[in-house]
Each structure stands twice: as C-alpha cells, then as structure tokens.
C-alpha cells in the first residue's frame, strides 16, 4: 500500500503576519514557519498506518524553497520518500490551483492507495484542498476523519469515522481515497536524534511545474480564480464593562445583564 501525506508549511501561529499588500499574498519568506499543526496529525496517521499495514509513506509539500524544512522533519520521522513541488510560477495559487498541482504530483508519484492531509491549514483556513484533490483524481472524498477503523488494501476498501455536526458518521469507501484528519486523531510523535541526523544529510529534490506536467494557465496567480482585493484588520471590539463588588453582588448583576439580552430562555 502506498500512502501520500500532504504537508504544508505555514507561518508560525505565534509569529507576526507580514503581507505583500500589492499582490495580496503573504511574505512567506520573511516569516517564521512551522509545519501546519493539523498536518502533524496526518503525518502521524500515515506513520501509524504504515506500522499497522506495512505501507510505504511518501510526504508531499508544495511551497517555496524553505518549505523543504517540513519535509526534512517528515524524513526525520522516517517516511520513505519526500517530494517538494516548488516553482516561482506557483506563487499566488488559490485552492483550485493548489489542488490541481497536488493532484498532478500525486499522479506522478503513482499507484497511490491513500492520501492523508490535515483538516485545514492555519494560514488560509479554507479546509477544502483535500476534498478538491479527491474530486480531481476521482478518489473517495473522506473529510473530517476522527478515526481510521480499518483498511482492507487487498479489496481496496477503507472504513472511517467522521466527526461531523452532532455526532459521528461511519463511512465505508473504496480506495484510493483522500482522508483529511481531525486534530486529536492521534498524538504526533517527535523525531529522535538519529532520525534528525539522517534527515539532515538528505538532499531533497525539487519538482518544478514542468516535471509534474502542470499547465501554466492553471497555476499561480494566472490560474487562481480567487483574488485578494482587500486586506483589513477587524474593528476592535468596543470596550466592555467591568463588574465589581462582592461575589453575590457581582453574580446578581451579571445575571441581570445577561437576562436583559433576552437570549436565555
């Protein structure tokens, strides 16, 4: 069984966000970067699946040169192979263009049974790239997965639990499938020293857009359908009211204020 895990490098959630206002894109090169926290769960799930079902894991990332860091981290965690899709022509891609590029790369990897990705990335927060990849490749689309119940690779079937509104949905699907996993599906491990040392020596090859056969008009700023035209910060919330006094007094006052909103019935 061959598993591809898609990993994105995102700006550190603690870091200051820097925008290129002209292009409406992020100055990714100028920001501290980390592996998208949601993708850590996808990577761990790939490793757990590999251990359980004897699979091969390929990590895939699209991003600027320094995105190689997230693949190096995946190597340190003993994935079998990594591919870095990087090309200046990709800058400005929206989800449609990104899913096109990743689908092309997955096709090039070939014979893939399972694609794992995180539920969403913490920068764009769209949460749709995994589903778009599935639709493009004609793979089963399994989003919001909180548990992989079983995989029957011989019969090309997978059973998962999806965490959706109000409960858990048990779904059976054909392989290949794209599974986007929820936070908390597992506990991501940390790489050990030997893994880090080994990974440090690996030269990570780059696939440019020619190599994956991506059409120029479908990628980057040219291929993007969704364009950023405005960037603002949300208006600050109006200053609130501090309630003070003894516990009894404050509690009564707060109850009164909240009942006045006529929301609590």
């Amino acid at each position, binding site marked *: 069984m061959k598993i591809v895990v898609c990993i994105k490098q995102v700006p550190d959630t603690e870091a200051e966000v820097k925008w290129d206002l002209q292009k409406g894109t992020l100055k990714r090169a100028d920001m501290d970067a980390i592996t998208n926290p949601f993708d850590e769960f996808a990577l761990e799930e790939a490793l757990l699946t590999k251990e359980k079902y004897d699979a091969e894991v390929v990590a895939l990332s699209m991003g600027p040169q320094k995105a190689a860091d997230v693949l190096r981290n995946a190597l340190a965690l003993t994935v079998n192979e990594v591919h870095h899709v990087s090309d200046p022509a990709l800058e400005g891609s929206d989800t449609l263009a990104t899913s096109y590029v990743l689908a092309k790369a997955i096709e090039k990897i070939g014979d893939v049974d399972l694609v794992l990705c995180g539920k969403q990335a913490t920068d764009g927060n769209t949460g749709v790239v995994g589903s778009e990849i599935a639709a*493009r490749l004609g793979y089963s689309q399994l989003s919001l997965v909180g548990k992989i119940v079983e995989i029957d690779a011989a019969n090309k079937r997978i059973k998962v639990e999806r965490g959706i509104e109000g409960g858990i949905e048990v779904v059976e699907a054909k392989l290949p499938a794209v599974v986007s996993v929820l936070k908390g599906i597992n506990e991501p491990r940390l790489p050990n020293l030997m893994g880090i040392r080994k990974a440090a020596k690996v030269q990570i090859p780059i696939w440019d857009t020619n190599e994956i056969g991506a059409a120029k008009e479908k990628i980057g700023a040219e291929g993007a359908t*969704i364009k950023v035209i405005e960037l603002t910060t949300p208006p600050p919330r109006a200053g609130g009211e501090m309630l003070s006094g003894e516990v009894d007094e404050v509690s009564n006052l707060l109850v009164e204020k909240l009942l006045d909103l006529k929301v*609590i019935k």
Partner: protein
Amino acid sequence: MADYKDVWVYVEHKEGAFTPMSYELFGIGQKLAGDLGANLCAFVIGENTDELAKEAGYYGASKVYTVDGPPFKTFRPDAYAKAATSLIDKYKPDVVLCRSTSQGADLSAACAAKLETGLASDAIGLEIDASKAVKVTRAAFGGNFLVGVVNAKTKPQITTVRPKVFAMAQRDASKQAEVVKETVEAAEDDLRTKVLQFMKSEVTVNLVEADIIVSGGRGVGKPEGFKVLRELASTLGAALGASRAAVDSGWIPQEHQVGQTGKTVKPKIYIACGISGAIQHLAGMRTSDCIVAINKDAEAPIFKIASFGVVGDYNQVVPKLIDEFKKRLSR
C-alpha cells in the same frame, strides 16, 4: 459568462429531517439576488424532497431545483456532487451559496474542482461589487485579518458561508416556488462511499450552532472543574466549550475546543471562565455577540474584548450564577 444568472442556495438536510438553520442563507441570498437583479433559487438533493422544496419556497426561493432518489437519501460527497454539478451545468447559476458545515464544505469543494471554478470558503461578509461580482470577506489567521476576495474569472462563484453570521429569512407559508425536478442517475456500484451509521454525540448541543456557550480554560485547573461549568451550561441550554490549554491538559475532549485549531463559534453569549484570552483562542470566538469573562487575573487579555468582565474565581462566581439563574428562570 453572460449565460450565468441567479443566486442559488443549497438546502442542507440530514436523515430526512431539516432544521430551520438550513434556511439561514435565504436572507443574504435574497439580498445578493436583489443587488444583481437576479432571482433567488434553491437546490435540494435527497430522497422525498417535496416538503423541503416547499419550505425553500416559503423562505423566498422563486424556483427550486430538485434531484430525488434513493442514492441521495443521506449526504455523501460523490453522489451529491454528481447531482449538483449536473444541475449547475444545465442551469448555470451565477452564484452558489452553501453553509460552511461539513456538508456544505464537502459539496462545494467537489463541485468547484469538477467544474474548475473558484471557491471562497467561510464567508463572514458578502456583497456585490461595482463589477457585479460577489465580494467575499473571510477571516484569515484566525480572524486577526479580514481578507476581501472575488472570483472575477470563472462561473459560478461558489462560496461557503459561516453559520450564524447572517440573519434568518422570514418564513411565509403563502409563498410558492416553481419546482423543477431533474433526474440524475447514480448507480450504487459506481459510487465510492457508503454511510453505514450515524452515532449521535453526547455533546448534545453543537458548538457551531449554539446560541450560548460556557467555556473553560487553563484557570479551571482540573478536570472536575468542568463539572460546575457543565451545570451552568445545562441550566442555560448552552454548549460546553474549552480553550486549547484545557484540552491539551486532558481535562475535556478535543471536540469541545474553540479557537484557531478548534472550532470557530459565534454565539449570542460566550461565557469564558478561567480563559486568559490568547490570540489563538480569541480567533475562534471574538465575533460572539456578547462575551463574558470571569478570571482571577485582572490583567488577563480576555477583559479587553469582554462585554462584561468579572475579576474573580470561577469556583465562587459560577455556582452563584447557577443559583441565581435557576431562581429567576424558575428551574
């Protein structure tokens, strides 16, 4: 591109039942249609969709497109996307709105990819700009930035809309929609996914849909601390939320987490107990209508955005609130 007209709204339903929340897009859909000089239409995919189609008319759709049949009994992305793309291909809507729920996101993503059109997800603002394109306002970086985006390139313009942002449309049972029934074949063998079972969660109130949320953070101090918060939540008919710190400490399951790596919520009242207010948490709840902060630390950043702040120990304040609410609400 000129062939594309009308604003379409996707009607969500689950296991044959539909909730009024499914109709919350009809208000904003009507507004956009008005600004475009277009019609508001709805589309329903399911089994026995007649009642749903009628309801869509009551909420203001002038035309309702339906695809009906056993393969569409429960939502699954392959069958529904097949039905939706065939409707969109044939009738060419200018704008398609779905809710940014599990269904809405799955369906819109599959349609966007199959139709090679853009998808703007999780809108918190929608308007028609000078070029008659839909300008979508989204929150990026967990709400610390607002990004205005348009798709001026492809049609339809597909958007998912964050639940609870727009006001519910008025229901008027005297309104009637024209119903257009389409047949889409979906043989079971050709479909890739099958829903085997749905297990209702013990988290009875869904955080995203909840009007009131009681939430606890690091300051709750221990798993048992959530007991009193749970009691307040049940007194108020509220959902129970938590910050990442509380979840990572193992005091409460992850499905309760609100924030950048949890759920984004917009209740009418959000009661934050022992939550300091890290930007990652604020990202998930800062647009709540009324925020109440209860925290021992008077310097906690949560107080800067709170509508009502109480400096105090939740252990003392919350039981008093429970007593007082019970008394006044005669519970």
